[in-house]
């Protein structure tokens, strides 16, 4: 689980995240929505320290990840991330993409890692592509491989930053389907997305961010039916 307390983030003089306090349970599926520039990505990237918070505390399963003495790499092994631009390693085959971290971090032998890799690739029907390079794959295939690359680490939670925003429309569905599947296997998810149907179907809770704050949150049903905040009402009118 993730506990955020008094999180502030500045880029130079710009106050991007404003005193955010929030807590996300280990098997929750939290969807974050909000207008562009409201700080969704920055918030997500603070959670695994790709961005360094200016102040405040973040705990992952009770342990502060801000403290100097903590090894953030250990935390990241259990807290995956999926990016808008997929970020598959261009210089490696699909299989090497999946097995690099488990092997290098000595979590698995090469044989174990590849066995798991094949298993995961079969699950998404891409096992015949295991020796291909990312540049030869479609966006939807790349993103699904990025998701199983993250699953290969057996993470407790995964952060998704607009995983379908860079995809051609016809490929969005296959990625959302896989994410739904992942949501059913007890892995906590924090998903920034504009896919409102996904939020409605999968989320246990939806957060609305505006101008660096989480200004409203609710169960999907109430979130869409009974929005309170004026900005949220405007936002929902625009996206639905």
């Amino acid at each position: 689980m993730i506990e955020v307390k008094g999180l502030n983030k500045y880029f130079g003089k710009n106050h991007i995240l404003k005193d955010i306090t929030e807590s996300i349970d280990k098997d929750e599926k939290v969807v974050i929505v909000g207008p562009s520039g409201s700080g969704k990505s920055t918030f997500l990237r603070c959670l695994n320290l790709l961005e360094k918070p200016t102040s405040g505390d973040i705990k992952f399963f009770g342990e502060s990840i801000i403290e100097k003495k903590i090894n953030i790499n250990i935390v990241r092994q259990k807290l995956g991330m999926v990016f808008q631009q997929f970020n598959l390693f261009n210089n490696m085959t699909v299989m090497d993409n999946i097995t690099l971290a488990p092997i290098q971090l000595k979590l698995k032998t090469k044989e174990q890692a590849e066995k798991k890799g094949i298993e995961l690739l079969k699950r998404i029907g891409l096992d015949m592509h295991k020796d291909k390079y990312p540049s030869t794959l479609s966006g939807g295939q790349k993103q699904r491989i990025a998701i199983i690359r993250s699953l290969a680490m057996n993470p407790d939670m995964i952060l998704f930053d607009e995983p379908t925003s860079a995809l051609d429309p016809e490929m969005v569905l296959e990625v959302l389907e896989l994410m739904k599947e992942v949501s059913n296997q007890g892995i906590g998810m924090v998903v920034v997305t504009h896919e409102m149907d996904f939020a409605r179907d999968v989320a246990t809770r939806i957060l609305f961010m505006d101008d660096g704050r989480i200004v409203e949150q609710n169960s999907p049903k109430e979130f869409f039916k009974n929005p309170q905040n004026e900005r949220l009402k405007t936002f929902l009118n625009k996206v639905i």
Partner: protein
Amino acid sequence: MEFIEYIKTGFHSTFIVDDRYKLFLEGLGNTVYIAIFATIIGVIIGSISAIVGFYVKTTGRLKPIGWIINIYVIVIRGTPLLIQLLITYFIIFSSSDNAVMIAIIAFGLNSGAYVCEVIRAGILSVDKGQGEAGASLGLNLYQIMRFIQLPQAIKNILPALGNEFINIVKETSVAGYIAIVDLTKAGDIVRSQTFDPYFSLLSVAGIYLIIVSGLSFALKKWEKRLSISDRS
């Protein structure tokens, strides 16, 4: 006819008389020798400074070493090569008279700063998302550099290193200032003996041109092969 006659006598006095071709060969040998070893030193120094510099920048650790690297690059790039060579010879190694070795060190140190920049730029040319994806899986900086960033940067770095070698071949022409008979100095010596600046100096220029063009051509072909095998 007169012109052909001139070429004949010019060639004869410049290369044949007193076995002067041997002087040219010695000079060419020194030029190539210095260029090769200076490049090797430059690549080693440049790689280490670039990678350490990158480590300092991303972790904020070992900052003083980062400053030293920056100062090194600024000083080397901000002063003429010839003055660096003279300082190395007359001040730093004033007690040694192994001029070729000193030239290799001076040219190597000079090249290191440029190589450092080349490698820095090569690493920066790799999309930031690649390293972030590695980090998000729990890989450490060394693993990210070794398995993800450097293999992708190398395609930009290698051709630039080839160019660096070509540059060094030309730049070694100032080695004569510290009593080394390199190709340029050989031509200059012959000029003073034959009193024919045309034949001696133009021959030297021609030899440089052939070497540099040959290397550039080989480099182009190689770059093409690299880009064909580029899968990204």
